[in-house]
């Protein structure tokens, strides 16, 4: 790695802590971000000459704070900026600051920074964009690319999100235990959204959106390092790792969806799977189940199966059953039905999803799954109707293409039967 690449990595990793602390000082997001930006510029000048500071985050907080305070003073009195040397002599100051930065305080700083992105008034896409901008430090251009919108549109979206956050008032009091756990849950949900935004991309855009998955995993690990004993955060991190481990096998070269059963399992990332399994193992020891742990446990059963036929569908059915109790949702039931079809057959699975029809009448996967069950039962005409509806509801061209493949097979089969 070149020197600048190393500095870039150090700046990226220090960002959440540094911006979080600067936000606590200045109580204003724009000021905090600008202070961090200025500190980074100084770091790019200073670090190659003087070597990396012992604690990059503390250095950036210190410098960012000083530069911003100078700016404020200068604007007030129109005085010139102090010489660079005046603020570069940081050795002692850094030491003292590092001592003052006790663990629990910066833990709350980072949590706050993540938490303000989860403001309930913000639509999901704005939460994600805001988190990627202020916590991860991705450029507007990078975020716009991941969302496949213009840079101007993304700029506007982020500006609007920041304004809503500022209007709502930032929560600066040190959170109590209940509040902290509420914030933690909101932040976990937001990280899951970031991941999903990348994961649910079609094959044509999967590569562009993959950074969203990687960033979500980085944020989940960050959160887990701050809250080492939270089984649900272990579960969330495990879930993201286990899902993302399959990334290379999920689409063919043409961008078409490859279902779990048909994936080349040698393309699964074994290192991510190992880490995911280790985390879910740790989480289970706490005997405090939760939705992320259950979903991770389901993903773990898939990851552990060397071949599709080795999958423990009975256990997956039970886990979805537990998830239904904890988080009742027609989508969970729909997923459970897939496990049921493997264990008890398509008839039982179809019975299970029929009552969901009214609630999932606009849900692509409902009709895709229903069509597949009907096809297995040889009810081709009904299957065709379900697949047609699925195509009409497809969110990506890859989804539509996948269903079209089923339809083609139906057509072929019925043509064969007519002969």
């Amino acid at each position, binding site marked *: 790695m070149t020197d600048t690449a190393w500095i870039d990595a*150090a700046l990226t*990793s220090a960002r959440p802590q540094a911006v979080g602390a600067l936000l606590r000082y200045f109580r204003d997001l724009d000021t905090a971000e600008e202070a961090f930006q200025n500190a980074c510029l100084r770091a790019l000048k200073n670090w190659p000459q003087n070597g990396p500071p012992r604690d990059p985050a503390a250095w950036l907080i210190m410098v960012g704070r000083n530069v911003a305070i100078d700016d404020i003073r200068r604007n007030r009195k129109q005085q010139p900026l102090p010489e660079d040397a005046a603020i570069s002599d940081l050795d002692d100051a850094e030491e003292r600051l590092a001592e003052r930065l006790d663990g629990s305080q910066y833990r709350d700083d980072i949590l706050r920074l993540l938490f303000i992105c989860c403001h309930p008034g913000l639509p999901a896409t704005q939460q994600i964009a805001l988190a990627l901008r202020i916590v991860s430090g991705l450029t507007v251009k990078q975020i716009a690319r991941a969302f496949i919108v213009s840079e101007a549109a993304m700029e506007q979206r982020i500006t609007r999100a920041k304004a809503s956050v500022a209007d709502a008032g930032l929560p600066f009091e040190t959170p109590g235990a209940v509040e902290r756990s509420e914030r933690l849950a909101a932040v976990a949900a937001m990280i899951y959204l970031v991941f999903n935004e990348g994961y649910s991309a079609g094959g044509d855009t999967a590569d562009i959106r993959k950074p969203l998955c990687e960033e979500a995993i980085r944020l989940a*690990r960050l959160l887990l*390092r701050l809250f080492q*004993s939270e089984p649900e955060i272990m579960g969330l991190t495990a879930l993201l790792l286990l899902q993302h481990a399959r990334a290379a096998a999920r689409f063919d070269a043409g961008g078409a969806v490859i279902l779990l059963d048909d994936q080349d399992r040698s393309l699964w990332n074994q290192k991510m799977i190992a*880490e995911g399994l280790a985390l879910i193992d740790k989480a289970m020891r706490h005997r405090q189940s939760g939705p992320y742990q259950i979903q991770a446990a389901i993903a773990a059963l898939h990851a552990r199966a060397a071949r599709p036929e080795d999958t423990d569908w009975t256990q997956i059915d039970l886990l979805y059953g537990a998830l239904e109790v904890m988080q009742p949702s027609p989508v969970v039931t729909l997923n459970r039905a897939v496990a049921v079809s493997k264990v008890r057959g398509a008839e039982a699975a179809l019975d299970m999803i029929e009552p969901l029809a009214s609630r999932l009448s606009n849900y692509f996967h409902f009709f895709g799954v229903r069509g597949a069950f009907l096809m297995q039962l040889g009810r081709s005409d009904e299957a065709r109707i379900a697949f047609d509806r699925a195509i009409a509801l497809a969110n990506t061209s890859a989804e539509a293409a996948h269903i079209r493949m089923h339809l083609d097979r139906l057509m072929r089969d019925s043509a064969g039967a007519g002969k």
Partner: protein
Amino acid sequence: MLYAILCYHDEDAVGSWSKEQDAAVMTKLAVVQDKLTRQGRLGPVARLLPTTSATTLRKDDPPVVIDGPFAETKEQLLGFYIVDCPNLDGALDVARDLAAVNPGGAYEIRPVGLLNPGSLPT
């Protein structure tokens, strides 16, 4: 004399490497390792998974199991090498070679008192 070269680094920084950066560092480290292997001086090498996957057993009575690594420090133990060197200077040379291709963090060099090579298939 066998030396353990213990690799410490800020895990956040290493975790911020892109996949390409990580692969580039590993490739360069492999070059250093190959040289040692040809000289018959390289023992086991381990890269540990992130400390978030760590669990600590404190040998209290009864033993207490804690989530996370043993020490909550900025720089964590991320892996190690076992190398055969005539003396500390030799071990420091190896560490310098490794450091040249993998900047940041620190190497702790510790003489090995006992090495059981074990019987794991590799």
